[in-house]
């Protein structure tokens, strides 16, 4: 704890943390992630938006269409109501939001560390979970499927584009997700800054008098 010589956050950092916490709430207004599927016979577009608590069609009935298409290769239908993560993710996000606000109000560096650490932990866990879900979705195929291509799996990409038979799947963070990433960036920035300023303060205490006079 010696790096945090001053145990309270600056006013500016407290505001930054509050803003970052508020940014998390964007995820309740906009999707976190978007998966777009492109195929020649879908000029009108096909895809889905992953929200903090559900998955919705990009255009009306897209999930139904995706499920209809995927059943040929034996992929399980996507049923948002049967994905447990979508049930508790909102609570985790609200928890992060509250912890951020507490950090901002209390101005305690320990809270800041705890906030950023839990944020990072949840983000990593979330991405791993998402990857595992995608892996299972793309690999765990119905053995009675009409179309079986040896060696072929249909795991969508976590980030970026991937060609899956006739469909090009693109997966990117959407407004909600981008806001969460920015919030995390702010958290990291404040943490690193506080860490550095803690160090600087230590060294400054030995030789800063002239500077103070100068200012």
């Amino acid at each position: 704890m010696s790096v945090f010589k001053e145990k309270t956050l600056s006013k500016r950092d407290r505001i930054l943390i509050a803003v970052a916490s508020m940014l998390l709430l964007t995820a309740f207004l906009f999707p976190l992630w978007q998966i777009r599927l492109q195929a020649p016979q879908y000029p009108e577009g096909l895809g889905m938006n992953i929200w903090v608590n559900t998955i919705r069609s990009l255009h009306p009935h897209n999930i139904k269409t995706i499920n209809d298409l995927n059943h040929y290769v034996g992929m399980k239908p996507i049923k948002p109501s049967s994905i447990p993560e979508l049930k508790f993710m909102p609570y985790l996000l609200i928890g992060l939001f509250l912890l951020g606000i507490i950090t901002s109000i209390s101005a305690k560096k320990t809270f800041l560390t705890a906030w950023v650490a839990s944020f990072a932990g949840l983000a990593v866990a979330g991405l791993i979970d998402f990857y595992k879900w995608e892996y299972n979705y793309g690999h765990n195929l119905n053995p009675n499927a009409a179309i079986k291509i040896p060696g072929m799996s249909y795991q969508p990409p976590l980030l970026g584009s991937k060609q899956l038979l006739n469909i090009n799947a693109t997966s990117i963070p959407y407004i909600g997700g981008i806001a969460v990433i920015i919030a995390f960036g702010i958290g990291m920035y404040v943490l690193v800054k506080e860490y550095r300023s803690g160090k600087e303060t230590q060294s400054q205490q030995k030789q800063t008098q002239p500077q103070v006079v100068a200012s």
Partner: protein
Amino acid sequence: MSFNKQLKNILTGGIALLLAMGTFSGCSSSNSKAGDDGAAEQVYVPPGKHDEFYSFMSGGWTGNVSVYGIPSGRHLYTIPVFSQDPTDGYGYTEETKALLNTSHGSVPWGDTHHVEPSKTDGLYDGRWIFVNDRNTPRLARINLKSFRTDETIEIPNTAGNHAASFTSSNSEYVSAMSEYSIPLDKPLGNGTDVPIDSYAKNFKGMCTMVKVDQKTGQMSVDFQIELPPFDYDLGRFGLGVSKDWIFYTDYNSEKAHTMLEANASQNDKDFVLAINWKKAAKIAHQGKGKVVSTEYYHNIVDPKTNWAKSEIKQKVRVLQPSELKGAIYFMPGPKSPHGINVSPSGEYISIGGKLSSTVTVYSLDNMKKAIANNDVSETIDGIPVLDFKNVEDEQVKKAGLGPLHVEYDGKGYGYNSAFISSEVVKWSLKTGKVVDRHPTYYSIGHLTVPGGDTRKPYGKYLIGLNKITKDRYLPTGPEMFAGEQLFDITGDRMKLLLDFPVEGEPHNATELPASLIDTNQVKYYDLDKNQNPYVTRKEADAKVVRKGHRVDVYMTAIRSHFVPDNIEGIKVGDEVHFHVTNLEQEWDIPHGFALMGMQNSGILIMPGETRSIVWKPKKKGVYPFYCTDFCSALHQEMQGYVRVSPSNSKVKIAYGTNKEL
């Protein structure tokens, strides 16, 4: 000008043209072959790109309306209207059968003539297309969101409904009109047994004003006007300054009932009938005339169930011309006139003198003056006849032989078709002077300029609807599609761009800008909102229910199987109703349903929709059924079986998909 001389001119012109074509590469605007002058570029719509206009063409004896893209001339779709269509089961399915109901029973065929778009303030609004059946007097309303016939209404006390489906400036009314007069009962009814030679005494013409509900488009017969037994041929509502009027041409003022080609062509002049429909409606709504008994069908699709229901109407208000003081006039017109068209400002009314070489133009101002001055030469059956000299404005001389119809470009020019001399003639509305003419191939009937019957024509193109095709395309035996011709009319001279063959015999056409229609299209029906009484919303709800000899099969279709796909317990003598719901919710994924030996139509079911078709099995056996619309990679596998047992069999109803019965 004699017909021979005209013919000689055309022939000479043709020879000169051939010579010119040999010498120069593409410079003549009266070229019979397009492809030079950049014409190919003007009509070329690259793959994946869309046309500028939709063209709706009546199919004549197909009973349908066909849709083409302009300028490419590509056939986009055919809308079944008055004819059964086994393509998708129109008129065969339980949901659509009622649209063909009339007081004569189901009439599964029609003769469509005039397509008229709905209007707002004298401009197209892209809501509906109205079209008439000439044979069994009916009007239909096509919904431009779905390109489907939503409504048909029979016109009572009428025969030969030719001068019909014209719409007023705000589509307040669609008009219907008798070409063939018929004897009418007193009180009125359909069909009276009288000697045909009592024509002049007993037969009557009938003008009908059909009201349009501005919200739903629903049509209702508002009132009728009994008329002398002339043959009313064509009509048009006024525009702008004349928007309260409707004008009709008529021939057979001789009241002939046999050998009309000679007997109805004796008088030097026939008539134009002008009705102030606004005044007439007001008088009718005051309770004038008589409400008489009759019988006619009104058939309309319920948008919630997509199911057409018939209603039999038994009353109609009929007015006598003598009750319409100041609202109805005859104006003497050219001998045996045909088309009548109102200029964009509404000031001029042009009439094609079918058996002459002139187009006669009336002016609304002259007509109003004649009415104000009471310039009446005689009265026919209570209708005052205005003095011809005082209403005529000008005559377009040299309008070709047999001028039929006029369209306007909104730049001060009229274009008339000339059937006998096979040409389009362009003239100035101001001076009546002919400024250009172009041969057509062959024998042009109607012609159309996009928006040519509105206050603001789009101009740009003119389409000639030819009656004779002969050698214009690869021959297809004795009968061929009709040949239409697209002209560029942006320059001083008309330029032939394209020949394109079309089905049936379009009697007229109307063009709407793509932007008025293309963004409003229904792509599929919402399954959750499907209120068809026999809908099956999910596979688990599919079932087969017997009630006496009637068996209802509640079936679902989705890529690539039916539920149920195995059905047993059907017996010879049963009436099996297949109610197939397409569970897809995706654009352009219809499923089909067809069953071996079914003496009915195959059907197409749009996504989210339910369609019902009746089958009466006559022999025991096992009958395969399958999807007729190539829906997926496993479309071939989309099939099933119905087992039919003898009528005395004990086989119980059993059904399912992917299970042993």
